[in-house]
């Protein structure tokens, strides 16, 4: 069961600052993610959207600010506590980030062995099959990542994330580099995962169709701050021309 802070938030970020080589990328980011919600984060390339979600799982350390995930401030956690939080937060990387040297089955087995420590082979097999079924790729179980298309890699990456039954999923550009039909499939999959697994998600994307289809709420980053916030319809009809043009 998800733990949350106030107002059913599973993630609360306050005044997050992150610089690289003296240049402030994220100047003052404050946002929240509610339980069961899909939040799309938009912004121009290089604005720091991926940096933001990497800060959430502690892959990148923030300079200052609070990042509260499932009731814990991850900026103050030790390695063991951070590990426990990471088990509840799935991360889908841009290219799927499947381990090249392992088959699809081994890719899915990897987080099971490291986190669940299951001995029952039947139970492990069931978990793998359930996860692959949920992304519709059970037939690819014995293939190597090099034999899969870009869309398939992302779906297997999502299956690997789902295997630990996360409460939050962070999607880093899930539809980038895919054709429109596959992008739509991935967007539908994001919705299916939200429904079936009751996850809250942050979706980093440039794909407006994906945003329109999957998001409950949108945050737009500009100049290192959250510049606009609201639903797709609200932002599309915004009086601020820069915001409304972003969603067209």
């Amino acid at each position: 069961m998800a733990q949350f802070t106030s107002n059913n938030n599973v993630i609360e970020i306050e005044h997050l600052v992150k610089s690289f080589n003296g240049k402030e990328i994220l100047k003052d980011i404050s946002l929240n993610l509610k339980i069961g919600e899909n939040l799309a984060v938009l912004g121009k390339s290089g604005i720091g959207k991926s940096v933001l979600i990497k800060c959430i799982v502690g892959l990148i350390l923030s300079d200052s600010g609070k990042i509260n995930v499932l009731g814990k401030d991850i900026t103050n956690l030790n390695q063991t506590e951070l590990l426990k939080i990471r088990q509840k937060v799935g991360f889908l990387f841009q290219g799927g980030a499947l381990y090249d040297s392992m088959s699809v089955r081994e890719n899915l087995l990897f987080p099971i062995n490291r986190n669940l420590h299951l001995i029952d082979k039947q139970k492990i097999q069931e978990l793998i099959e359930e996860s692959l079924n949920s992304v519709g790729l059970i037939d690819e179980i014995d293939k190597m990542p090099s034999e899969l298309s870009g869309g398939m890699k992302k779906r297997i990456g999502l299956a690997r994330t789902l295997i630990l039954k996360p409460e939050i999923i962070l999607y880093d550009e899930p539809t980038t580099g895919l054709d429109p039909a596959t992008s739509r499939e991935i967007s539908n999959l994001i919705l299916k995962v939200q429904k079936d697994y009751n996850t809250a998600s942050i979706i980093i994307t440039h794909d407006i169709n994906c945003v329109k289809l999957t998001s409950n709420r949108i945050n737009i980053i500009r100049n290192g701050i959250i510049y606009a916030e609201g639903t797709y319809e609200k932002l599309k009809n915004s009086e601020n021309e820069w915001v409304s043009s972003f969603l067209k």
Partner: protein
Amino acid sequence: MSENQKSRSLKEFLFEIGDLSKFTGRFFRETFRKPFEFNEFLNQSYEIGYKSLGLVGITGFILGLVLTLQTRPVLVDFGALAWLPGMISLSIVREIGPVITALICAGKISSRIGAELGSMQVTEQIDAMEVSGTNPTKFLVSTRVLAATIMVPLLVIYSDAIALFGSYIAANIDGHISFQLFFSEAFNELDFSDIVPAIIKTFFFGFGIGIIGCYKGYRTLKGTEGVGLAANSAVVIASIAIFLIDLIAVQLQQMINIF
């Protein structure tokens, strides 16, 4: 090169030395902390050790053959052909065998590790490992460095043996010497103080090859060009490190001999 460029290059060099030291410190901290990734260590030992046997064997054989063919005429001129097995075994076991084998391993192992980890870095596989609850330093770095540290000395011993066999073949091309006599002469010349320091330094060669390959791979910048550069610089730096370690080892050995 302008003063500014010189100062920037020096700064980058010192930064890299500092960063490599930090990386090595992290390796020691993580390696001896439980749990130990034993299966991955075995897997890497197979990749690094077993899969290098062919290359190391062939180069060792040619090394012994060529060294003997080159040395034989000189010894004949001085009427000292009987010294051939002893001289070859001394030079192979003390110096040429360990250094040449380590250089071959630097080319094969360090580049492989650099390219593998570099490609994992740019495709975010290392980040994926970290978010899925695995310590990538333990899983990727500790296992590879330990496997290289243990496998390189074994490969050197194997290569030395093959090189001596190559030498025996070469000795029989122009002349005749029995297998038993050749090896008995070769081992008579070898002392404890020839073998042990030579083997000890190969552990450091292996460690250098592993840690430099891992460091360059881990610090790969974005893009496929970065992967190529990581593999290339891993080989170059590991090769230089081998000569530096050898120089230090020889100096230390001489100091110990004096006392």
